[in-house]
């Protein structure tokens, strides 16, 4: 355990970078998810088609490939990104593409009566979305967004492969110096696990806090919840 104590300062710094990447990635994910998700619901094809293309493209090509593309291939096109920027950009666009499907699926599954009532009240489509559909959908999106966020946290470890000095990178370099592989890797394994439990608790708290209908929450079908992560 010596190495873990000797390097605890550096590991804590790495933990800080991991949390920073997670938070920045989460913000970008949410922004991307809502823009792409709402555009893909649009009746306007010049909004809908690019959004659908974006989602399919970023879901289909794989996160690590995208990250390496931003980091290694983009400079050949004359654009150099800092490692942290390349990492966060890839994370946000990739997880955002998954979360866009959550946004789209949840808003589409709102009861039709809500939309009809809003139309009957003479609300414009934009107002209907902003005042009726989105506020009602957010609690319903929370469980799926929780999955995306845990996924995001775990995937932040990939930024170590594009030279960002996050938790994984610190453990890996400390390992090459000290050779204390077991202790260092097990330590960060547990740290990631604790962080993902933390995100899980946070999301469950938010779910309880903002539950629209507690009964339907309890009855939520397990398979639907799993399937909802990818499609719907």
């Amino acid at each position, binding site marked *: 355990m010596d190495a873990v104590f000797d390097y605890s300062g550096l590991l804590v710094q790495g933990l800080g970078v991991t949390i920073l990447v997670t938070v920045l990635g989460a913000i970008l994910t949410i922004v991307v998810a809502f823009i792409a998700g709402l555009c893909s619901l649009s009746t306007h094809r010049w909004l809908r088609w690019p959004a659908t293309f974006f989602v399919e493209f970023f879901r289909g090509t794989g996160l690590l*490939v995208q990250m*390496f593309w931003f980091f290694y291939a983009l400079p050949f096109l004359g654009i150099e990104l800092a490692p942290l920027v390349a990492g966060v950009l890839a994370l946000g666009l990739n997880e955002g593409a998954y979360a866009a499907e959550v946004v789209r699926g949840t808003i589409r599954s709102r009861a039709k009566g809500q939309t009809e009532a809003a139309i009957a009240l003479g609300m414009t489509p934009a107002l209907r979305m902003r005042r009726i559909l989105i506020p009602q959908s957010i609690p319903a999106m929370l469980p799926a967004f929780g999955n995306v966020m845990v996924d995001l946290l775990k995937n932040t470890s990939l930024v170590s492969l594009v030279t960002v000095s996050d938790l994984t990178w610190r453990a890996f370099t400390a390992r090459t110096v000290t050779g204390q592989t077991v202790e260092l890797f097990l330590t960060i394994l547990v740290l990631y696990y604790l962080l993902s439990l933390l995100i899980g608790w946070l999301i469950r708290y938010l779910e309880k806090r903002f539950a629209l209908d507690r009964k339907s929450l309890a009855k939520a079908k*397990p398979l639907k919840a799993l399937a909802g992560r990818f499609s719907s």
Partner: protein
Amino acid sequence: MSVWDTAFAISIMPILLKGLWLTIQITLVGFVISLVVGLVVAVIRYLKIPIISPLATFYVSFVRGAPLLVQAYVAFYVLPLLGVTFDALPTGIVVIGLNYSAYTAEVYRAGIEQLHKGQWEAATALSLPRWRTWVRIVIPQAVRPIIPVLGNYLIMMFKDSAILSSITIIELLGSALSIGSSYYRYLEPISIIGLMYLAISFPCSLLIKKLERRFVPQH
């Protein structure tokens, strides 16, 4: 020299296709491991045996809660220290298979849980033996709706296998990176493999959407 070198792109295709073939093999073998181990874990959890079942629950939660990259590092760098030495490839396949087994275990559980209680009651009323209830009633009904969900995990695994390039496996991404570092041209290899991943996973996800409409009961 132009930005995109087509002649170079064509010349590297044989290496990339070899990497793609290895990626497909890793995915298929890893997926079989995840299906088998996931089933064992799901059954252990279902049986509610003291100590063993909570351990299975912890396994699912712990494996899902930590990054695949770190798990691959642990297997690749820690196991040799314990005197267990495998080549990178089998290690990588087992790691990704075990990683996904935590997800497939949850899928099986969801498949069994969404079965209506009346089905069990009816089987009991007909005094069907327990194993026949499972084989004739539970499993056939539980499996159909989980096929699309498992299919989605197969696609995710195909893309996640790129992470194994970090433990020296020359699969699709690994082959692109090794070309990149020897010719110092990254644009062509990484762009091409991105499109290869897309060319396989996109049609598969369309197929799975079709299966979903057929297999998953709609409300």
